């Protein structure tokens, strides 16, 4: 197996004197799903920004094999924008031609193929805002696939989805894992994280990285602090304080 993402001592931030993330050491192999678990404001999005080269890096290194694509939460996109599912998928191919030139036909074909991979070829002409939450998430994944990305960064892809839609998106991610892509998924859900191949616990700095077994009570406590509550019966859950980025 080859490593598609390697970070060593990664540290970075926007505000002077304050690190958004630090001490991030990990290696993600091809065909692995990594859950990035942490509280709001804990640095999950900043970590993704660092991998995209958008977060000012203060020390450490990032090495990525192939292209990387960011899949935002669907509610961040404008639902009133008159773009179809195919239009959105095609946005992943925009780098194929300079901004002032027409996209080549093969780009459109690649976008179409990406929609097919996520099971939405029948919805190509449907407006993005008219799709269900799960379908919108799959269209955004198709956009990343059309970009021919080997590394996918998904920001809470299952947030707000019903069980059936979440299951469908989960199957798409499993299919992509089988094609040798590396998939990093930011999530609040400890149960979702336990399904991943690796888990990165982050709260401004790396708390733990390893197989799901690292998710013991002590690690969760260090990751979430006061946001972690113990449920009757011994289960643990996180109180999610929604905030705007």
């Amino acid at each position, binding site marked *: 197996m080859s490593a598609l993402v390697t970070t060593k001592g990664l540290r970075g931030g926007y505000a002077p004197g304050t690190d958004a993330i630090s001490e991030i050491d990990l290696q993600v192999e091809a065909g692995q799903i990594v859950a990035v678990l942490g509280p709001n404001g804990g640095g999950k999005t900043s970590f993704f920004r660092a991998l995209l080269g958008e977060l000012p890096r203060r020390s450490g290194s990032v090495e990525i094999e192939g292209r990387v694509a*960011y899949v935002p939460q669907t509610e961040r*996109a404008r639902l009133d924008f*008159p773009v179809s599912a195919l239009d959105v998928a095609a*946005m*992943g191919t*925009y780098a194929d031609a300079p901004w002032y030139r027409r996209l080549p036909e093969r780009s459109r074909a690649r976008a179409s193929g990406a929609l097919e991979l996520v099971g939405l070829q029948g919805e190509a002409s449907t407006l*993005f805002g008219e799709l269900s939450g799960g379908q919108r998430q799959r269209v955004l994944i198709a956009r990343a696939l059309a970009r021919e990305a080997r590394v996918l960064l998904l920001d809470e892809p299952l947030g707000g989805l019903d069980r059936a839609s979440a299951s469908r998106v989960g199957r798409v991610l499993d299919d992509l894992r089988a094609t040798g892509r590396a998939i990093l998924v930011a999530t609040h859900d400890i149960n979702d994280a336990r399904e991943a191949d690796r888990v990165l616990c982050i709260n401004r700095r790396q708390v733990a990285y390893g197989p799901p077994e690292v998710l013991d009570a002590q690690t969760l406590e260090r990751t979430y602090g006061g946001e972690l509550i113990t449920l009757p019966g011994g289960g643990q859950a996180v109180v999610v304080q929604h905030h705007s980025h």
Partner: protein
Amino acid sequence: MLDALTDPFAGEIGMRALAEVALLGLVCGPLGAWIVLYRQSYAAESLAHAALPGLVLASLAGAPLLVGAAGGLGVAAVAIGLAGRERRVGSDTAIAVVVTTLFGLGVMLALRPEVPARLGEILFGDPLSVSGADLAATAVLALAVLAALGAFHRSLSLAGFDPQAARSLGVRPERLELVLLVLLAAATLVAVGALGNLLVVAILLAPGAASLRLARGMGPSLALAACLAVAAGVAGLYASYYLELAAGASIALAAVATFALASLVPALRPRA
């Protein structure tokens, strides 16, 4: 019947007016749709109104209004840009203060006794007074704006639809907002002569907003916006000719009517 349709445009003045409103409709319609999508309608109104001092000064100096509009828009763009960075009182409030100040300054200058009696033309426009040189300038700037809209189409779509992910796909949203403001300034520059400082906003925004209610997809929305804006321009000229109304105001009202009608027919948009 045919005479009734052609009479308003039989003379040279009518033909020039027709060409002017057609060109303005072709460029202002699609540009307006983008402005509505980018939620820059307030900036469009601000930019047009804040250009008034430049227009009045051009009138005082006997210079072409186009020159005055260019200078006024330049000052307004810088002032609005600086005010937009104000965080303590909020950018909307800061822009409102700047625009009101510039508009008030323009009115104060316009009411001086030495200003030629062109205030009405400056505020409300007159497509029937368009000269051949004005028409040529409109054609050049309209083509330039349309070419830019075509060239930036993909980037505008991506940055407007998903600004959070746009950067990772090679597009900087803040640059596209600037591009849109520059194109808006160029369109305002050519449209203000025919439609005036107060009414230009109608042709810039109403057809675009109407098309977004009626059409499905970006391409059809932009095409429909151009058609509605041209139709509003032509309908306004007919109304002006047969009802003896001011041409600029008639066009503005026709443009607003497209939006009102679009609001009444949501059923035209089939749902999936």
